[in-house]
């Protein structure tokens, strides 16, 4: 069904614009038109459908559900809720405060915060559409494992010691009534439609530029980096490439919507899967602006630890994936 977009791109780029198919510009333009059209169409339809189903879920209900759970199960639930709720890094601080003052362990909250920007319906849909279900599953699994392991580690070192003092106090007192705002109101179909329409507008307004930037970068990589260059120079998966990719990527910020087209392009160019995923997930999971925001609730020490945890986790994930790649994708 998605081939229709390749057809559309051929029509626009080669027939209407008259670009030649075998030139860098022609290939880049084709990639750009095909991916943009496909992504926008997928986004429109799927955000709406998923928002209809998700209309009654909000952070207050998630908090009520997470409060007082067993820890191990808590990390899993934290990541799961991170995956199914939409989330923008500008709300990370209020969410962090809300969870912590309901005595939800810092690790569980962190599992939520790490997983949330990496995995959501938009990411899954795009990955599936552009890269196939195998990579989508790998991506989801890595996102969950990194979120849960990162959270568990922070609790193991008792990271709540490094919260900002006002919040450490709120955590100790458990000041928020966790049950507050948790009533599950039944929504009419009409209310769900209103919510879904708003979601589509809002998410679209937020991500359209990331899509263009991401697809533009992907297209430039695809059309202009000489074929085989990435494969020859970075295709061997030397051990240092993964941590180097992660260090470069963590401070960078892009939205997941912008990263998927870049991922597609890098993989098509022969960059090993582990290196690609490590790079892309690091740009999405954490960013310099987000660390600045989190400084309001965490002391420097905890921020540095969090940075370290993400660095180690994504590097390990990249190494493991590079090592098992030949087993996953038998050469055809």
């Amino acid at each position, binding site marked *: 069904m998605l081939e229709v977009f390749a057809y559309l791109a051929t029509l626009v780029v080669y027939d209407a614009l008259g670009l030649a198919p075998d030139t860098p510009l022609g290939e880049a333009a084709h990639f750009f038109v095909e991916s943009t059209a496909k992504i926008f169409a997928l986004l429109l339809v799927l955000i709406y459908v998923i928002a209809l189903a998700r209309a009654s879920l909000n952070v207050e209900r998630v*908090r009520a559900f997470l409060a007082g759970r067993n820890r191990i199960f808590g990390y899993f639930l934290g990541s799961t809720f991170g995956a199914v709720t939409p989330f923008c890094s500008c709300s990370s601080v209020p969410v962090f*405060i809300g969870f912590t*003052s309901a005595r939800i362990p810092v690790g569980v909250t962190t599992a939520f915060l790490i997983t949330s920007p990496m995995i959501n319906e938009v990411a899954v849909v795009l990955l599936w559409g552009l890269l196939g279900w195998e990579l989508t599953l790998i991506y989801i699994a890595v996102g969950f494992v990194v979120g849960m392991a990162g959270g568990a580690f922070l609790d193991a070192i008792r990271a709540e010691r490094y919260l900002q003092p006002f919040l450490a106090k709120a955590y100790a007192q458990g000041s928020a009534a966790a049950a507050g705002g948790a009533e599950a109101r039944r929504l009419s179909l009409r209310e769900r439609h209103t919510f879904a329409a708003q979601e589509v507008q809002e998410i679209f307004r937020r991500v359209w530029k990331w899509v263009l930037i991401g697809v533009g970068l992907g297209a430039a990589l695809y059309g202009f980096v000489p074929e085989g260059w990435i494969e020859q120079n970075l295709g061997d998966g030397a051990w240092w490439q993964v941590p180097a990719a992660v260090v470069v990527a963590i401070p960078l910020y892009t939205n997941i919507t912008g990263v998927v087209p870049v991922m597609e392009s890098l993989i098509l160019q022969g960059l090993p899967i582990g290196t690609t995923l490590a790079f892309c997930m690091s740009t999405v999971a954490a960013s310099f602006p987000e660390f600045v925001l989190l400084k*309001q609730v965490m002391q420097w020490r905890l921020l540095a630890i969090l940075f370290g945890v993400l660095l180690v986790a994504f590097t390990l994930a990249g190494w493991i994936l590079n090592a098992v790649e030949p087993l996953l994708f038998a050469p055809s």
Partner: protein
Amino acid sequence: MKDIKVLGSGCAKCNNTADLIAETAGELGVEVQVHKETGPEALVHYSVMSTPAVVVDDQVVHTGSVPDREQIEEWLQ
């Protein structure tokens, strides 16, 4: 005079909310004091998790979005 606080860390929506309240109050001729509370402590104090949130005379009346004009008019009554 009503004392209105808008909680949230300076995101665009929080500023819009504060502006809209001030504007509506001006049109209705109601005297209000609108503050923007950008610090995280205020969120703990009012147990608010979704911003922007609106606090009228120390009561949280709205969280999580830019309020409608009708809602604002109601608070100002």
